Each structure stands twice: as structure tokens, then as C-alpha cells.
């Protein structure tokens, strides 16, 4: 496998963490506001960025979509990993492994990345992201 490795990231960030951070109505907003206020080295994928941008486009408008992209660009502790054929293949293998789950390819690539780079913590409110054994921030008493 030749895909780009995360530079010793402490946590993988899923789309749901960005939405909980941005949405003050979300029940987990305070948690992610605190986590993003002083983040360690964190990593996500271009699929998550595309999914988040799509959420703002559909739920709101182009302006909010651009604000989300600005958030990603300004969040300097965040490394955004590209998703190419190898990452896609690894994600597809995860989808096939969990045939009893409604996993999106975005989720699956995230799960593959956490396994590949031994990332043990995940910022997400989506329980699917815990399938590989990562500790979700919403369940982590240390957060």
C-alpha cells in the first residue's frame, strides 16, 4: 500500500466532529468546542472535507460551504490526507468486512486509515467510527 501516512496523528477527525463544532444546537457542541480549542496533531481525509462541504451546501448555502472550507484551511493542526486508488481499495475492503452496517465509503476509508496508522482516538459522534476499536471522543472520560 502506498497511500500517504498521517504524520503521527493523535486523533482522526470525522465529519460529525466538524458539524458538532460548528452547530451550537448539537448536544456534543461543548465537547468539540473544547477539543478544537486546543487540538493535538489531528488528521482527516479529503472525503471527510467533501462530505462536510456537501452538508453545508445542502443544509445551508454556498456561503456556509465556503466558511467550512476556510475552517479546514485555518485549522493548522489538521492534516488532510488525499484519497487515491489505494485508499479507495482499503475503504472498499472495510465496507465488505462490515456488510451488516450502513457504512459510507468516507467512514470506511477513515476506519482503514486509523488501522493503517495505528490511530487510537477518533473525534466523531458516529458509532460506526468505533468499529475498528478506536476510542470515540464522546466515550472518552479523558475529554
Amino acid at each position, binding site marked *: 500500500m502506498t497511500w500517504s501516512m498521517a504524520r503521527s496523528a493523535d486523533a482522526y477527525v470525522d465529519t460529525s466532529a466538524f458539524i458538532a463544532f*460548528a452547530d*451550537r444546537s448539537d*448536544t456534543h457542541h461543548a465537547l468539540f468546542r473544547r477539543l*478544537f480549542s486546543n487540538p493535538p496533531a489531528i488528521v482527516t481525509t479529503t472525503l471527510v472535507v467533501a462530505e462536510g462541504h456537501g*452538508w453545508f451546501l445542502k443544509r445551508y448555502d454556498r456561503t456556509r460551504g465556503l466558511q467550512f472550507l476556510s475552517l479546514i484551511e*485555518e485549522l493548522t493542526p489538521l492534516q488532510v490526507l488525499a484519497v487515491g486508488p489505494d485508499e479507495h481499495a482499503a475503504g472498499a475492503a472495510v465496507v465488505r468486512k462490515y456488510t451488516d452496517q450502513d457504512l459510507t465509503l468516507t467512514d470506511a476509508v477513515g476506519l482503514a486509515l486509523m488501522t493503517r496508522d495505528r490511530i487510537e482516538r477518533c473525534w466523531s*459522534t458516529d458509532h460506526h467510527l468505533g468499529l475498528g476499536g478506536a476510542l470515540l471522543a464522546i466515550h472518552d472520560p479523558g475529554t
Partner: protein
Amino acid sequence: MIRTQISLSEQEYAAAKQEARRLGISLAELLRRSLRAVLPCDESRPWMRYAGMIETGDPDSSSRIDDVVYGAKR
């Protein structure tokens, strides 16, 4: 993790239990979430201006992303 004890009035306890039940979480988790909401955090980083930039009115919005992006199942 540190264990601690707090005292609540009967009304506070009943209301908190009811809210925890509504959210499907434990009383302890409800209290942890409430505490996070009132404790100050560092807002000085440039990206923190995006924190809370929207208000959907849906407490479960981050759990329903797939419905918005990919559409709800039929």
C-alpha cells in the same frame, strides 16, 4: 477518571434523570456534558471563530449527516 459526589434537590434529580432518559444517556454523561458547556475554553485560535457559527435547532444534527448528504433511506 475522578469520581465525585454532588447533592441535588429531588426536583433537580428527577428533571435530570428525565432529560438523560430523553437523550438516551446516563445521568453521569448528562452532568459531564452540562459541565463542559459552562467551563471556559481557549477561544484565541483563529479557527475558533467558526465554533457555533450555525444553529440548526437539532441536538442530533451531527448524528444525521448521512440523511442530509446522501438522503434518508426510503
